[in-house]
């Protein structure tokens, strides 16, 4: 990337060559890794369905129809059957996707923003900033992940927004550690020293010489993290600490369906399957992204 140093022209040429190399790598991977392409298609379909839910020819997800409760899949008018209140499961799954996907992406993005900022600060500035940042992450990592998220929701009160905040707080130390490691090694490199010798300010050094190097590792970590965050928010909703009725995400659908699992297993199996397929697809795509951006990992 910007290793070439302070001169703008060679840096631009290198960047263009780099982009071309990446495009080729993506092309090669697409032909080699068909599974990742399939996973990406599944994700695109899920995102489109979630985005377009209001305009899709779906039943109203909240209309109660008790005479038609717990209908099995492929029942007349209900492709995936109905839940314990006779609500259309397909519609609820699609509307639930909006909540689950948004929650996962938002929690991961918030964790990333906070984590990267603290990691850059903790890696670039030695002294008390580093001490404070690193002790904070140490202490947060001294808790089991799920437990701390639950404790934070306990403090803030159950609800989807609070669940997302909790998961973001619990999740940021991973990014902080990752980014700080990279920044620590960059700080000692010659091009940073050269920039400093030429009188570049901290802000310029960070923006032009440090941040571009963080892009690849952070994108890789983020692409693998979204799935984990979807699982975590679904878990909190499953415990009754996330989404509150009548809004439903996949986790809370699973929790309420649990009571009817003997009579109608589909009420539980379908939302779980939805989480599983989406997180699997995210992990497959994440792995492929890592193979492109971190070629050393691919050969392992």
């Amino acid at each position, binding site marked *: 990337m910007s290793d070439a140093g302070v001169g703008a022209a060679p840096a631009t040429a290198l960047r263009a060559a780099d982009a071309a190399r990446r495009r080729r790598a993506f092309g090669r991977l697409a032909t080699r890794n068909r599974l990742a392409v399939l996973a990406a298609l599944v994700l695109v379909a899920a995102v489109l369905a979630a985005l377009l839910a209001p305009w899709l020819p779906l039943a109203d997800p909240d209309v109660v129809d008790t005479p038609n409760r717990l209908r099995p899949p492929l029942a007349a008018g209900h492709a995936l059957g109905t839940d314990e209140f006779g609500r259309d499961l397909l519609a609820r799954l699609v509307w639930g996707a909006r909540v689950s996907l948004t929650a996962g992406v938002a929690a991961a993005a918030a964790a990333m923003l906070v984590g990267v900022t603290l990691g850059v600060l903790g890696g670039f500035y030695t002294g008390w900033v580093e001490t404070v940042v690193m*002790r904070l992450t*140490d*202490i*947060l990592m*001294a*808790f*089991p*992940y*799920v*437990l*701390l998220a*639950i*404790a*934070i*929701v*306990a*403090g*803030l*009160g*159950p609800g989807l927004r609070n669940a997302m905040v909790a998961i973001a707080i619990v999740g940021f130390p991973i990014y902080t550690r990752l980014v700080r490691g990279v920044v620590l090694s960059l700080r000692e490199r010659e091009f940073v020293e050269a920039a400093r010798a030429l009188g570049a300010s901290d802000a310029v050094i960070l923006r032009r010489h440090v941040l571009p190097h963080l892009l690849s590792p952070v994108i890789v970590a983020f692409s693998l993290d979204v*799935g984990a965050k979807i*699982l975590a928010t*679904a*878990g909190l909703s*499953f*415990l*009754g*600490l996330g989404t509150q009725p009548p809004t439903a995400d996949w*986790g809370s659908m*699973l929790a309420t369906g*649990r009571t009817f*699992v*003997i009579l109608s*297993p589909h009420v*539980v*199996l379908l939302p*779980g399957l939805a*989480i*599983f397929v989406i*997180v*699997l697809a*995210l*992990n*497959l795509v994440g*792995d492929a992204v890592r193979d492109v951006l971190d070629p050393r990992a691919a050969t*392992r």
Partner: protein
Amino acid sequence: MRRYLARRLLLLVPVLAGVSVIIFMVLHLSPGDPAEIMLGSQATREDLARLRADLGLNEPLHVQYLKWVGHVVRGDLGRSLWMKRPVLGEVLTRLQATLLLTATALVLSSAAGVALGVAAATRPNSVLDRLSAVASLFGASMPSFWLGIVLMVVFALWLGWLPASGMYAPHGGGDLRDLLSHLILPAVTLAAASVTIVARLTRSAMLETLGQDYVRTARAKGVSDRAVVLRHGLSNALVPIVTVIGVQAGYLLGGAVLTETVFAWPGVGTLMVQGILARDFPLVQGCVLVVALSFVLVNLAVDLLYAWLDPRIRYE
């Protein structure tokens, strides 16, 4: 080793102080009056005032914290508002069930994970190796609570082989056999994701040691395959494997909350969730504190184990 132990114990002090601050702060994060949250909007002014005085909520935050720590150090975690009993006794009783579940899951995931990883490393690119790669991807993507429900439906409801929930049968149970039959499904559910992580890491650690010169020398000397894999390969790959197993121990301790809820296992996790829904702050605080403390101790034990396995660590 003694100096190493002393240093590690000293390092515990700031971590425990930080953990206690976080637990204390977390439950004071709530916007609004904790007394009102706990008692609900129906509470009378007198009830609110009494609870505030009981919990010391009228004092400045740092005084409240110091008092709370003072009580905790003396083993007093307060009284549960919901159960009207001291928190410590209740949490410790439940902790036994959680530790039993977590330890069983850890033994399962370590044994199965190491065995799978070693088998995959000795035959790279075999069917088994590929299957374990697919399994690890599935393990990372499957919600544990869903897997638990699926296992429960199949093995308890359809096949009727195992009990669906609880720790003992309500009638006529109570012996070891009864306990074990109740333990199988939750332990397998909890262990599932860990098995795949331990297996993948064991595989890569083994592949690395099996590629070393001393392994080639051992093979050239005519040492049997079995001895090469176990004595030269596995024993030298142990440090990273123990590391990941240690991380898994903590993960299982936290993840147990979800598994316990699925199987109505009477552990700290179910108690904590009940506490949150009942807005019983002292109970929740006690649960979090005890589990976090167990987690810190597990990490300490793992660190000591490394130092014992690899003498170089002690002298760093």
